[in-house]
Structure formats: structure tokens, C-alpha cells
């Protein structure tokens, strides 16, 4: 397959000088590396070895390195100037028209530089990931596609993930597909990489164990979530040191692989390794890693609850309830006289119970629809109700704390607005509308909560509020 593509690309660029070529395929299917290798092969490193009649140069511009459209254009001009050995001044390149002019000038000079026949000189301009270009001018792609019409000896190669239909606004552009790797291909490629801690028993053993290990990883993890070669390799290399730990310890030998596998079963059941995180939380090779991760995640939420003051926690709870409860149910949940009704709510009757997935027109759970906007006043009303509720168990605990709470009540509302502003600056609450429109603490400004259900539940427990009681569902 690769050979096919190789031949194909080769033909497109060399034998038949197309103006535009599109290479497309999913991530990590070798588009960039193949085109780079091929072009490197086609364009000789130095002048001496090149055929005089046929010169191909290439410039690769990676869109991910360019922060704006203009950056891309400037970079393109600079690259081309570098490639063709342009001595003159490089003009500013603010827009596409200037790019065309500059490139035209450079290539014109380049092709007429030598005395001999200039027909063979060609420039291949590779735009890697051009479909992900930030702040690209709207006509960037069609304009680049017309480069070939204006400048005769240029071939533009676009590397894209999934081309939109007719995205160049030009019919008949050859598209070359890079299909995703199949399982055998993936395993074969992985087996070529050398695992970093080698086994003490030797290279051969290492290779053997590595290939079987990678198969196990593929079957248990990568097949399901990270299928492409890069993340597959990453997962393998992350798990490998822990996988061979028993061997290094001397507790197990590499030969019965199944025993090794059983010993490391937990490694393949844990999906924490698939979640990218900056903090390298490599769980120690123990069977208790599940518990550990739970603790870790708890620690994260605990961190939030621990760091926020009591009032802010209550405010966040109120914001969550305001976001996820429809306003019309407020009267049921939060009216002072409705306490009894609320209590009743717990036991559902046979009539109300539903089996999910049976009816054709299921009700979408409100929780799933995401947070809705609410006005600050509504949140404050809920907050006041919650504060009372939260204080109930504490009263039972002891009078002293209760007194403290009372004092807070007395202090007034200025702190509340402060807390809201803090939460908003922490991005736990999100203000809707334009960033600077209106007063952030205006009673009618609209907010939305930005924390999820699991966080809120633990928050609620930390202040003694069962959030489920207040959720309309």
C-alpha cells in the first residue's frame, strides 16, 4: 500500500507536473513523513549530484507552526527564498496577492538563473495541515490552488486530514488517500521500536516480550480508544517499564508470557493511562492502582472543595441548581412552605418509574442537556435557601458553629458578590454575553455553571447538602 502511494505521489510530482496535489488521510497515517522522504529523495541535497535537466526543490510549511494567516504567507516566502537562493530583498507579504507576486519574482529569477534549459526546474510547495491553519484568510486555499496558473513551474501539495468536497474550488485535482493502518501493520510498526529499559536476559527476549506485550496492549486498550500509531506507541512506552517490573525484580521470568500478563492484569484494565495529563501520574505497579486512581481523583475534587470557602461552595451549588433546574420547578424545591413536598419527592411511584430506552420518544434528561443560563438573582435566592438547609445539620452538631454562621449572615451581601466575582474569575461560573458588557454583579446578568455533576455532589456533601434532593428530574 505504501509502495502504491509512493509511486502515486512520485508520478504526480515528477512525471506529470500537476499544479495541485492533495494528500489526505487520518492522523498518523504517514502523510507528512512520506511526502517529506519522497521529496527529499527527489530533490538532491547539493547542486553537484543533481541532474542538470531536471531540478526539483521543495519547501515544507507546517501550518501548526504558523499562528496566523499572515505568518503562514511570510513563512512561505521566507522558505522559498531560502530554497531558491534568493539574494534580493524579501518584500512584505501581507496578503495573497503579494505572496503571488513575491513567489513569481523568486521563481522567475531562479529558473532563469542558469544558462541551460530551464524547463525542468520545479518547486514543490508543501502545506502541511493547511486545513487547520489558524486565522486563515477565507480564500487561502482557492488562491493557493491558483498559484500554478500564474506561476508556471510550481506544484502545491496540500496535506489535509479530511478534505471538504471541492475545497479548492477547482475540478480535477488529484487526491491521494492515505488509508489508516490495519492491525497487523500497526503491530509491525510498533515492533520496530526499541523499548527503553531492555530486559536483562538479552535483546532477543526483549523483542519477543515487546511484540507480545504490544499485541496485548493493542487488544486491551489501543483498539478501543487510541488507535493511531502515535498514541499507541505512547501507551506502550508508558506501560512497558511497569510491565517488566516483575522481571527486573526477579520475581517472574519472561518465558511464560501468560503469567507475566496475569500479574500485570490491572495495567490493561485501567484507562487512566489513556487520559493525557501533564502530571505524570504513573501508578506504581501494584494491583491496587484502581484504588489509587480513585484516591487521586478524589484528591482533585477535594482540592477544589478544600480550597473554596464555605460560602463559595454554597454559591457554586446554588449556581449548579439554577443551571440544571428549570425555573418553574423552583417553587417546588425552594419555597419555605414546600419542605414537606420536597421530602415526599424521594420515593417514586410505579406510575412515574420508566424503563429507559423503551419509549421511542425518550425525554432527554435535563442533566444531559448541559447547563442553562440563569440570572444572578435566581442563584442568590437558591443560595439563601441552601444556606439554611446546610446549616441544619450543623445546628445539631453544636451551637458554636451555628453562631459563626449567624455572624456571616449578618455581615451582609457584599461578600456574596465578591464570591461570585471570584468564582467567575476562576471560570467556575461563566458569564454569558460579551465579556465586558454590563456590570458583572448586576442582578440581571446571566451566568452558567461550569462544573460537572461529580464535583458538585462532593461539594454538596462537604457542606452537608444532598444536591439530589433539589434536582428536578
Amino acid at each position, binding site marked *: 500500500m505504501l509502495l502504491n502511494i509512493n509511486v502515486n505521489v512520485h508520478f504526480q510530482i515528477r512525471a506529470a507536473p500537476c*499544479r495541485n496535489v492533495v494528500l489526505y488521510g*487520518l492522523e498518523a497515517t504517514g502523510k507528512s513523513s512520506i511526502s517529506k522522504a519522497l521529496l527529499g529523495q527527489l530533490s538532491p541535497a547539493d547542486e553537484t549530484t543533481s541532474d542538470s535537466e531536471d531540478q526539483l526543490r521543495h519547501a515544507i510549511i507546517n501550518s501548526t507552526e504558523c499562528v496566523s494567516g499572515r505568518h503562514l504567507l511570510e513563512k512561505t516566502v521566507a522558505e522559498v527564498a531560502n530554497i531558491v537562493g534568493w539574494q534580493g530583498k524579501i518584500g512584505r507579504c501581507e496578503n495573497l*496577492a503579494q505572496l503571488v*507576486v513575491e513567489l513569481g519574482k523568486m521563481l522567475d529569477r531562479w529558473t532563469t538563473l542558469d544558462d541551460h534549459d530551464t524547463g525542468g526546474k520545479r518547486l514543490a510547495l508543501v502545506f502541511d495541515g493547511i486545513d487547520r491553519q489558524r486565522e486563515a484568510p477565507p480564500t487561502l486555499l482557492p488562491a493557493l490552488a491558483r498559484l500554478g496558473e500564474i506561476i508556471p513551474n510550481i506544484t502545491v501539495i496540500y496535506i489535509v486530514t479530511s478534505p471538504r468536497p471541492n475545497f479548492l474550488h477547482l475540478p480535477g485535482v488529484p487526491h491521494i488517500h492515505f488509508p489508516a493502518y490495519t492491525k497487523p501493520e500497526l503491530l509491525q510498526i510498533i515492533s520496530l521500536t526499541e523499548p527503553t529499559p531492555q530486559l536483562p536476559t538479552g535483546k532477543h527476549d526483549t523483542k519477543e516480550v515487546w511484540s507480545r506485550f504490544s499485541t496485548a496492549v493493542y487488544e486491551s*486498550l489501543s483498539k478501543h*480508544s*487510541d488507535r493511531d500509531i502515535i498514541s499507541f506507541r505512547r501507551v506502550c512506552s508508558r506501560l512497558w517499564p511497569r510491565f517488566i517490573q516483575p522481571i527486573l525484580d526477579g520475581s517472574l521470568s519472561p518465558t511464560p508470557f501468560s503469567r507475566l500478563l496475569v500479574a500485570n492484569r490491572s495495567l490493561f484494565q485501567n484507562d487512566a493511562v489513556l487520559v493525557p495529563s501533564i502530571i505524570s501520574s504513573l501508578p506504581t505497579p501494584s494491583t491496587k492502582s484502581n484504588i489509587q486512581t480513585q484516591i487521586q481523583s478524589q484528591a482533585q475534587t477535594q482540592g477544589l472543595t478544600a480550597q473554596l470557602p464555605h460560602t463559595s461552595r454554597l454559591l457554586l451549588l446554588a449556581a449548579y441548581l439554577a443551571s440544571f433546574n428549570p425555573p418553574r420547578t423552583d417553587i417546588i424545591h425552594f419555597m419555605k412552605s414546600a419542605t414537606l413536598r420536597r421530602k415526599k419527592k424521594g420515593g417514586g411511584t410505579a406510575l412515574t418509574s420508566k424503563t429507559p430506552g423503551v419509549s421511542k420518544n425518550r425525554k432527554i434528561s435535563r442533566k*444531559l*442537556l448541559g447547563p442553562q443560563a440563569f440570572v444572578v438573582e435566581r442563584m442568590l435566592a437558591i443560595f439563601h435557601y441552601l444556606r439554611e438547609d446546610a446549616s441544619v445539620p450543623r445546628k445539631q452538631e453544636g451551637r458554636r458553629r451555628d453562631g459563626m454562621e449567624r455572624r456571616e449572615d449578618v455581615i451582609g451581601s457584599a461578600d456574596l458578590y465578591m464570591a461570585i466575582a471570584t468564582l467567575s474569575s476562576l471560570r467556575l461560573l*461563566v458569564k454569558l454575553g460579551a465579556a465586558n458588557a454590563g456590570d458583572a454583579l448586576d442582578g440581571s446578568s446571566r451566568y452558567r455553571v461550569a462544573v460537572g455533576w461529580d464535583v458538585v455532589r462532593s461539594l454538596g456533601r462537604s457542606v452537608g447538602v444532598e444536591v439530589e434532593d433539589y434536582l428536578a428530574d
Partner: protein
Amino acid sequence: MAPASPAVTRKRSRALLVDEALDELSPQKEKSGTPGLGSLKRRKLNTKASSSGSEGRWGSIGQKFSGLSGLFGLGDGNGKETLDNADDVDELVGDRDIWQVDSTENEASPRVKKSNGETKSTRDTTNVMSQTTKPRRQQNLKANEPDNDIWEVEASEEDMASNSGAHRHRGRGKIDPKKSMLAPAPMAKGPDPSLKRPRGRPRKSDILRKAKADSRQETRQRMVSQNLEVADAPNGRESGRTSDETSPQSGSELAPSSITARRIRGDKEAGTPGPIQRAPKGILTPTKNMGKRLGKSVTFEQKGGELDLGFKDLPSSANRREQKASLVVSSSLDSRRTPDNQVQFAATGSNQSAQSTEDMSRTAAEDDSSDRSDEIVCQACSGLRSRKGNQILLCDGCDFSVHQKCYGVPVIPEGDWYCKECRPSSEAEMEVDMINGTGIATAESNIPDIVGLEVHLKKIQRTLLDRLTGQKRIRLRGHDEQMQKVHQVVEQTVLAGEGNSMLVIGGRGCGKTTLVESVISDISTDHREKFHVVRLNGFIHTDDKVALREIWRQLGREMDVEGDLATKTSNHADTLATLLALLSHPSEISGSSSEQIAKSVIFVLDEFDLFTTHARQTLLYNLFDIAQARKAPIAVLGLTTRVDVVESLEKRVKSRFSHRYVYLSLARSLPMFWEICKQGLTVDAGEVDVELGPEQPGQKEFLLFWNAMVDDLYTNDDHFKHYLQSYFYRNKSVPAFFGSCILPIASLSPSSLPLASRAFLSSALSVSPPDSKLHILPGLSELELALLIAAARLDIILDTDTCNFAMAYDEYCSLTSRHKIQTSSTGVAALGSSTKVWGKDVALGAWEKLAAYELLVPAGIGGGGGRDFGIAGRMMKVDVGLEEITGSLDGLAGVMAKWCREI
């Protein structure tokens, strides 16, 4: 078919002759009108005369009878008319007899060579007959033979023209009674319909079968039958063959006719009873046959026989009456039949069994009329002539008729010939051969031995690839008129100094740029120094400022304006002012009329519609204004794909536009499309010097071979044609086709020389853009796929087209856990992690990937998103359908396939 074709010729000429006669006969008939038309009219006449119902029939019969009686001088006005007609016919019959005899002499001559004695004898007999008919007719006026003939003719023609069997039947019914009236007593009416029906029935079935076939087909059929008759006469062998050939067409009638044929033979073998029996039946028709047929040949005797057959099917009691009545006439006829003819007939009768009774009886009845309407029209050129070397061929499968040359059949094939529609079924085996590679193998053997084959191949590859990739322009085909228009406009500007503006509108890849560029290069061959060209592209020059600078730059370069001038004009207004000054006529600025002539400038605005989006359309306004106000000789050519582009022009701009348009259309038909595409694959003889350089040994041969090879690919290779068709019917895009041709041409080498269709069809080297996003699916991991399916399911379940991550994940969890429960309850070992519910974070990663692949697209701008929520909180639309997912994945896990199936 070969033996039949001379007969076709013969029929033709005779039909022509008869046509002339007919024109005299019926004044309404237009000269040289198609037989169908004439017959139609006559049919109308007939139906008018015979209004519906039995009374009407009676009336019509009466009318006709009066017409007939008019012959005896009894008729009223109407009758007189018919009488006149009848008289005409009489004369005509006389004429025709002469003509016919002549024509038989002339055209039968080839056949005479084959069987001299026989033909001559037949001719003799016909002559004798023709002589004898006249006296017979005179003495037989009571029987009203000629008139009857006329009616008969009408009836049959009506048959041929009408498609509704019922109608025809009625007409026939009318005539039949009338005919029977000719018989002594009107009481014949009762039995008559029943008497005629057997004859009519097969014909009805036949007509129904061919209900769709037009009158031409009818004609052709009749002609074939006549051919048979004609051919029968000289030698039975020939007729046998022809009848065999026709047998497939008249299959449905085969059974009855064979029965009757057997009966005939029986009659013949019986000897004397035959003639006697025939005589009575011939009462109505045979006699007229005689009258008309005479000249024809022996054939009419068969008709007599056939008619016998028809009657024989009837109850003999019905025949009796007529027998008595017509005995005189037919006996006289029979007596004239030479014994050898009878023998012949007996011999050929069996062969003729294939022929339909209908044909027989009809031709018998019609004889001349059939000649008249016998025109076989070539369906390609509508020509009527069937000359030697370019004869009209008739398909043996359908009723397709065409000239040899029009259809590309150099030699009339032995045996059956089929048109292209009928051929595939019969040539399916050949295609199989092709697929198996035998066809290719044979083709490979005929690479010509040409000097320097490799060099020539390289050269032509180079040339063609340049064309395919757009490095060299191809010539525009089929837009001569448009080209002329554009050429005129540009020329007016360049030579006469006019200001012009024009829009060239056409779809992508239809050749707008090619048109304009070829016009410009055409003009620049003579007048290069008289004009400048400024080319702008709406994609590149995205606002007026940029465009103006570009104009300034291009003009400056061409006009050799000093560089500092270009740099001096830094702002928009300056540029515009200088440019206007440059473009305006000198006299306008200086006020004095100097003799200086401004050079004309041609502006080519590609993607013209994008220029209309520029602020206030300043550039367009100024350009059009200059063009219209004759300030300077400029031509503004706008190229666009949008038909409604003028609507987007501002009023003041629109009023300055000349409203000249040129519309280019894509190829309208497949041959047209091929004509254009062919340029990418062949080099014309005229372009050889330009394209391939100086003549070299073997070049001519190689070119011939190459072009023949490409032609062959189109004409003979069904796979290639199908491939071409797929491009034609999908987008008609020539560039797209060219793009797909690059690889096959580029990878051609002397060893793989005959370009075969498989080079185009191999999917591994496909360079076409993907049809949809579904090509992504095989590369997805199982979690991504499961989430996608869950999201697509929600589409249907919730009846909304949007969903967010939480909803899709919830659905995924419930699906997976349900599956887990099922598998555990049924005791199926849970296969490792296949039933594992992946965590929210992992799933979110998968969800983000789906969004990155654009399988999930954000639903609207305010879709609950905002920058603070990321992909997870945003409402998304699923861009693939649930049923598409199953369709595009072969290795889909059983569970997921089930999820796709069951909601």
C-alpha cells in the same frame, strides 16, 4: 440478410413509383409525404365514413356500396367521387402494371442470372396475368375488383398506422362487410365478420405485440415478407433461408401459420382439389391480387394460397356462398397458373410456414399499397436510399434499420446482423473473454513494429501529460459561436479602440479561461504590441486596494513605467487617480485633441462574482465607467460561474455594464464529451509539428497507431466507455477526467503499450477526491465508533439532530451496560474489554477526535457552546447517518452492528 438486401432496393424504387401514382389517386395526400402520414389521412377518411355502431357500419357500407355502384353509374355525388377515384385507380392499375413489369425486369435481372429460366417464366406468367386482368376486370365489374382493392388497401394501411387494435379491427370489419357485399347477396354480412376474424386475429395479436413499434417497423416487416415473396419465386432455397431469418420475429404467429401452411401443402399435394378450393376463397382478395399483383411475380400465387388458408379456417358453410359467387373469377385465375408455379409454391409453402399469416394476408391484400409504404428509413440519417455498398441494414433482433455507412458496418455480415441494442445479449460471451484477458492478450500481439517506438512514446506521453495537467491549453471544442463573440469584442477594443465589457459565464471546468486565453493569444499573434492584458483573480485579489495595486503593477511592468512611480503611489486614492489618468484618453485630460492613440488594455477578471463583494464595487464601477464612457479603449472580461452575477452588481455599476454575456455549457452529449476528452489522449495530425517537434522516422506511423488505439478504446472497450460515462453523467467535468488519466498515461511503457481500460479502472491508483466522509470510519477506534453510533442513534430516538457529549456518552453507557448484562446472563464469556464502559475522560478524548475529523459538526453558532465549555458542552450534529455506518464498514463488531440496526 445479404440476399434480401437487393430486394430492399427494389422495393424502394418501386415504392417511389407507386407513390407518385398514389398522389394522383388521393388528392389530400401530400407529395413525398411519409407513407404513415398519407395512410393516416386515409384512415381518417375511412373512419369518418364508417361511424361507430352497426348502423354506422351499415351506413358506411351503404356509402361504399353506392360508391361502388357509382361505378355502374348509380351513385350520387359522393359516389361519383369514389367513382372517379376508382377510375383513377383503374388507370393506375394499368400504369402500375406496366411499371411493375418494367421494374421486375430491371431489378430481377440479378436474380435472373441465378435462375434464368424460372424467373423468365414467372415474368411471362405475370405478364400474361396483367394482360388478362384487364379483360377480367372489365367483364367482372360486378365484382368491383379495383374498388375493392382500394378499400382493402386503406384497411391495411390503417392497420399499419393505427396502434389500437380495436380501431383497426373496426375498420377491417367495415371493409369486410363491404367486400362481402360485393358478393352477390347482402346476406353475406352475417357470416362475414366471423369469416374474416380468423384472418384478423393473428394480425391483432401481432399488432399488440408491436404496439410500441412505429409505422416504420411495420413497413420493414412487411418488406421482409415481401422480400420473401419475391425471393420465393425464383428459387425455393433462397426463400427458405429468408423465411428462416424472419421466423424469430413472427414467432407468435408461427403456430397458426404453420398449421395453415401444412394445409396448403396438403392441398397442393392433393392436386386438383387445391385450385378448385382456392378459387372460391379467392373471391375477394385473390382477384384484386391479380389485378394489382400481376406485375410483381409469382409471389401472388402464394398469396392466393395464403388466402385460401385464411378461409380454410372458417367454417366451410360460410365459404360456400362465396365460392359459388367467385368461382368464375378465381377459376379463370387458377387456370392461368402454370403447373410449375404451383409445384414451386407447394415446395416453398412449408418454408414459408415461418412467415406470419398476417404478413401474408396483408401483403396479399395490399400488394401495391405495401410497396407504397415500404420505405425503410435509415434511422441515423433518415435517408431512404439503399445503394449497393451502402445498403440499409435491418436488425434481426428489433426493427432497427440503418445504412451501412451510418452504422459503421463496412461489410454486410453473413447470417444475422444485430444492432447495438440487441447485440450485448448475444455477445455476452465476448465480454467474458475480454474480462478474462484473452481480449487483451490478442490486442497485445498487434503492437506495430515502429522505429524508435520508445522515443515516440516518451514524446507523446510528455505532450499529453502537459495537456492533462493543464500546462498546455487544449483547444476549445463546440463553443465556436461564443469564441467568435469574445473574439469580436476583444478585437474591437484592440483594433477599433472601443470600450467593451462582457461576462463569460459557465460552470467550473467548462473552458472559460481557455476560451479567453485562446482568444487573447489568437489576437496577440498579430497585434501583440497594441494592447496590454491585466489578469486578476477574485480569490487572490481580495479587495479593491490589492486589485488596484496589482493592476498598477501589471500595467507598470508591461508599459515599462518606472519603478519609483509604483512605489510612490502608496495609498489607495493615489493609485486610483494615477491609474485613471493612465487609462483615460489623453485628450480628456489635456483638453486638446492630440493624435496620440492610447493602447488598449484587456482586463480579465477571473471569479468575477468575488469582485462584486468588494466594498462599494469601486473597481468595477471605474472599469465599467471607463469602458462605457470611451475614455480609454479597455475591454473588461469577467469570468464567473454564477449565472445571477449581474444581480449582485450595484445599480450604478450595472447601468454601466454593457450586458453582453457569453454562456458556456458543459458537453451536452457523450460523443461531445469524448470529443473534448480525446484531446487529452491523442495528438491531432495538425498539431504534430507544434507539439512533437520535428518529424522523425516512424513518427507518423506511431501517431497513427496511437490515435487508432485511443479510438479503439472508446469504440470497442465497454469498460472504458463505462468509465467515461461515469464521468459524463456525474459531473461532465473534463478536468476531472483528465486528472484521472494522468496515471494511466504516465505509467505507460512500451511493454504495456496498448492502453487498456484496466489501467483506468484500477482502484489502487485512484486519484479522485473522496465521495464522502465515510472513508474515515475504518480508521476509527472502537470507542470512537461506539460514541458515533450512540450519537447517531440519539438522532433518531430523540428526534432532534443535535446532541452533546453528555447525551451521547449516556447513550453509550446504557448500550454497553445493557450489552454487558445480556452477555453475562446468556453465559457468553465477556470478551475482555469489549463490554467495558470507558471512563468519561477517555470518551471525551474520543469525542474530540470525532469532532476534529468533522464527523461531528457544531450545530449553529449559539449551540450552547462558548469558548469556556470546549467540545464537551457544545451541541453537535452527527454528519453521518446510522445506516451509512453499517454500510461503510465491513469489519463491524456484532454488537455495534446491532446497535445500528435496532433502536
